[in-house]
């Protein structure tokens, strides 16, 4: 599998960081690596600092201790190519769909012809071709989120961070979008770090799942998902993984032997 050969290569992302806001410790020396082209899901209870972690990965928040390295260098949005899909609606209402999707490319100073080609290609990929000239207020919430996803995948960013991007969508839209993201990820070969509090979503999407504890956040468990895609949420293997994850998320009766926990100083 591609993942196996990728793991042998130097990691795309290497995190060994702590973060605190004043006396509030958000992350207590959190440590993990992400291989190139890996789809990593990070799962944790609400308020465990997932968004803080993503901000550190995006390089817009410096960890107060340790480091976040991307390709061996500290994360910095100006020097590295990172894209971000936000949980809340983030399209620019004053730009039409085409210009919204082109935003990331234009910031990077991509030549005009290339922007046009990449934007129309990505719009086809997310099924928004034909909506180029629509403004966000003219399309549905699901389509707006697809615009945001297209904006992230249109750039050459080889690291894409997704912060609960489907949380505001209804179930059928959500499922369709999960399939679409997997499809784009497979075709474009990018490294994705996907944060969610939805276990099924994490198991459905990820190559690997990191389970975070409540604040101060630590990595409670690391669960590789080896099920073949497309995954069937009703299969026994899926259910077993789900039970494993739940055990870590609800620590009552947690069984440390079931899941492989990373070697970190706290453990």
């Amino acid at each position, binding site marked *: 599998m591609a993942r196996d050969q990728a793991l042998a290569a130097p990691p795309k992302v290497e995190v060994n960081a702590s973060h605190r806001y004043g006396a509030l410790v958000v992350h207590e020396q959190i440590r993990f690596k992400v291989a190139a082209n890996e789809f990593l899901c990070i799962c944790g209870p609400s308020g465990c600092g997932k968004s803080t972690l993503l901000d550190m990965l995006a390089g817009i928040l410096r960890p107060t201790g340790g480091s976040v390295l991307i390709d061996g260098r500290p994360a910095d949005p100006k020097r*590295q190519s990172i894209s971000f899909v936000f949980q809340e609606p983030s399209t620019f209402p004053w730009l039409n769909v085409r210009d919204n999707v082109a935003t990331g490319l234009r910031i990077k100073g991509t030549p005009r012809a290339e922007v046009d080609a990449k934007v129309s290609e990505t719009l086809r990929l997310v099924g928004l071709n034909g909506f180029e000239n629509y403004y966000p*207020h003219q399309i549905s919430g699901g389509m707006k989120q697809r615009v945001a996803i297209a904006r992230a995948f249109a750039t050459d960013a080889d690291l894409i961070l997704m912060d609960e991007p489907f949380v505001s969508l209804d179930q059928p839209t959500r499922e369709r979008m999960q399939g679409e993201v997997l499809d784009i990820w497979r075709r474009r070969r990018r490294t994705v770090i996907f944060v969610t509090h939805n276990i099924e979503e994490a198991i459905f999407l990820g190559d690997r799942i990191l389970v975070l504890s409540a604040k101060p956040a630590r990595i409670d468990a690391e669960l590789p998902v080896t099920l073949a895609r497309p995954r069937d949420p009703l299969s026994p293997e899926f259910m077993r993984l789900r039970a494993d994850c739940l055990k870590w998320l609800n620590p009552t009766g947690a069984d440390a032997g079931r899941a492989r926990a990373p070697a970190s100083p706290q453990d």
Partner: protein
Amino acid sequence: MDAGPMPLPTGGEAASGSGALLSRGVITVLWNLVSLALVLGLWQLAAFLVASPFFPGPLKIVDAFVQLATRGDTYGHSLLTHSWASIHRVLVGFALGVALGVPLGLLMGLYPGIYAGTRAVIEPFRFIPPIAWIPLAIILFSGLTRFAFLIFLGAFFPIFTATLVGVARVEPIHRKVGVVHGAGKWWILRSVVVPTVLPDILGGMRVGLGTAWLTIVAAELAGGISTGLGRMMINYAELLQVSHVIVGMLVIGFVGFLMNECLLMIEKRLFRWRWQVSL
């Protein structure tokens, strides 16, 4: 039309057989013409009944208008000369107000510390009406400079304040979209802050234009010049020529209305992305 009651009443907008053929726009224009004709008719009737030289009817006004437009006033300045003099002064002062109000509003909106630290200097000026500056302006400046200064004072604060308030409307998430993709401060200003604040700026400009227009007439009434709509009105008021004074008033109303319509048209073009343009 001779048919009985419609089987399915569909509310106030449902038109009868002939009305449905006309678009809503045409109906609006027709209603405006009807109300205008009604007012003019009543005015003419009242003028006829009062029969005083100080209460001219619309026909007298038209006479005065034609006379001012073709032959000019007692000094030979035509109505166009007077109108253009006023418009020119307004545009210069207004442009100054925009050129200073927008950048200062953006700066102080983006760096609230600067605003907080200078409030005691800026805010009291807002409460000195431009008209209260006229005596000082007469002493300090002459000609176009005087008018540009006064109109600037009138236009600046609505534009500055609207811009300042508008900056607070910038969504942190929109800024973050830029930052995570590696955008610098300049990109965020140009591509996030300005598009967000632009509707407020345009709104402030419409208010500022109103103030500017109000100020110019007052400033011209104060004298010291020979042209301008305000000047023309004062001249005729001294001659007790009421019709000519009213022509000046109507031209002021009409030009102000046209300027506002121009700004509204710009808004409609710029803000197609919004649900609707508010009036």
